[in-house]
């Protein structure tokens, strides 16, 4: 399957306070409320302009800083199910996997693409297609891939506690 996505391009070291401000973390609960503040202090145009299927294309160390999961869920609830970055903060990468959001490491994309550009993803071939350029999508660890394939950590837990055998 090949899917096409509009990209939102950001730079290096974007931290979780910029992705979802800490002042909201204990009071906003609904997906719509959380999504409404996505990238509030980084790109005020994002929350109003993002469409389902859009992807983020960021530089190095995307999602550094806090462990707050809304750094991922704010984008997920806004319709972003794939996040591409030159590299990820370690906690952020885990939070992506656990939320069933696909993290793709691609060092080149943020420098190559502009916000509003289209990219394509060939899922089976694990390729990222950007104009004439083709980038390999590096494999995830088997554990991470299994959680992602299972829809995230919560669905995995639900199956486990419903009595299904989960390896």
């Amino acid at each position, binding site marked *: 399957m090949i899917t096409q996505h509009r990209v939102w391009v950001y730079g*290096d*070291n974007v*931290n979780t*306070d*910029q992705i979802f*401000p*800490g*002042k909201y*973390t*204990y*009071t906003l*609960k609904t997906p719509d409320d959380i999504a409404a503040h996505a990238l*509030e*202090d980084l790109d005020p145009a994002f929350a109003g302009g993002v469409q389902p299927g859009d992807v983020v294309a960021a530089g*190095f*160390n995307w999602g*550094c*800083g*806090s*462990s*707050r*999961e809304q750094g*991922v869920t704010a984008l997920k609830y806004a319709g972003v199910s794939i996040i591409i970055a030159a*590299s990820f*903060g*370690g*906690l952020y*990468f*885990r*939070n992506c996997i*656990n*939320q069933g959001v696909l993290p793709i490491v691609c060092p080149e994309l943020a420098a190559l693409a502009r916000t509003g550009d289209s990219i394509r993803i060939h899922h089976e071939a694990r390729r990222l297609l950007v104009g004439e350029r083709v980038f390999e999508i590096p494999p995830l*660890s*088997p*554990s991470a891939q299994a959680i992602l394939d299972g829809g*995230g*950590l*919560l669905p995995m*837990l*639900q199956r*486990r*506690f*419903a009595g299904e055998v989960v390896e």
Partner: protein
Amino acid sequence: MTGYTFAEKALARAGGVSSARAGDILDAQPDLVFSHDNSAAIRRIFEKSGASRFARPERVAITLDHAVPAPTTQHAQNHAEIREWVRQQGIGHFFEVGRGICHQVLSEEALILPGETIFGADSHTTHFGWLGAFGMGVGRTELAALWATGELWLRVPESMRVTLTGRLQPGVTIKDVSLRILGDLSVQGGRYRSVEFTGDLLPTLTADQRPVLPNMMAEFGAMNAYLPPDQVVFDYLEARRTRDYTPLYPDADAVYEEVYSLNVSRLEPQVALPHQPDNVVPLSQALGQPVQQAFIGTCTNGRLEDLQAAAEVLRGRRVSCRLLVIPASASVLLEAARGGVLAALIEAGATIGTPGCGPCMGNHMGVPAPNEATISSANRNFRGRMGTADAPVYLASPYVVAASAIYGCIADPREFLS
């Protein structure tokens, strides 16, 4: 066969396997898991999971610290849901509003010991490396999974060795060393590895000073950080602990992916400029920057010696901008009150707040107005961190923050030190 890093040894223990190497994937069973004001949100995830009871309630801790006392009805409701959950689940270790910041309180209570493993729903869980423990931050869903199952998969990290040698000059602190490391190696430098410290500086550090290093390694992007525990740590724990422990040390021939050394003998105080903790310059290049607010506190620098350092600078003087002092715990507050430190700070014009995280993350109290600058003893100065996007935050040691409060601009504390 080469030796093992601390991370490899600690995670082999937590994973119940005879040995582990970087790159191995295992299910770790931590000795303690904890969360804080985020526990109500974690409860909602847990309740969706299908689990009904905690796997190991005696290994669970919750502190209320991030927005205390509750500033709004919503925050109060959040706390109420957590208290109800603590009762329902029989959670082993619960610490109320005012007891202090999770990392400080769990250290004081000796709930985590050398060689043990602790996962917290907080990025600064790296803090517990000061005790020679493996401390790792996790997300909310991961913490819900830990409540439900008592275990979490992880990949054993590669390690980096940081060697610190020399002696600190008067007025220079381990905070300045931490900032210098970030300035040299950047917030990308840790790359989610185990950062394992060594060197002849470490034994000279007190129990109040040590947590600063592993705490700040969260900003470095480390998975965990580690200081080798010695008599200072053993003495700290002796009167507090309720169980035995076995310290773990990396082997002399352990494999490190990267090594970095710093001799601190000529280091001067450092300042992180807005808006990133690795935007670090020597104090001399930041002098005179106006600030409207100064903040001493947080898990990084809110312990008794930090308040004493501030009092040393401020005793008999007056601040010329707002100074907020928030002890990291009730124990710190009590000791500071008994020893006359609080009196000196209040006489100098400081405002004292409830033990907790204070204005570090912009949830309540001490939020700056637009365009107001704050100098803070915290660990993180991202744009908007303190609740206002256009309010620059500078990071420095308690000495530098106190001196800056006197002048209303970034200042050198050494002129005030005898």
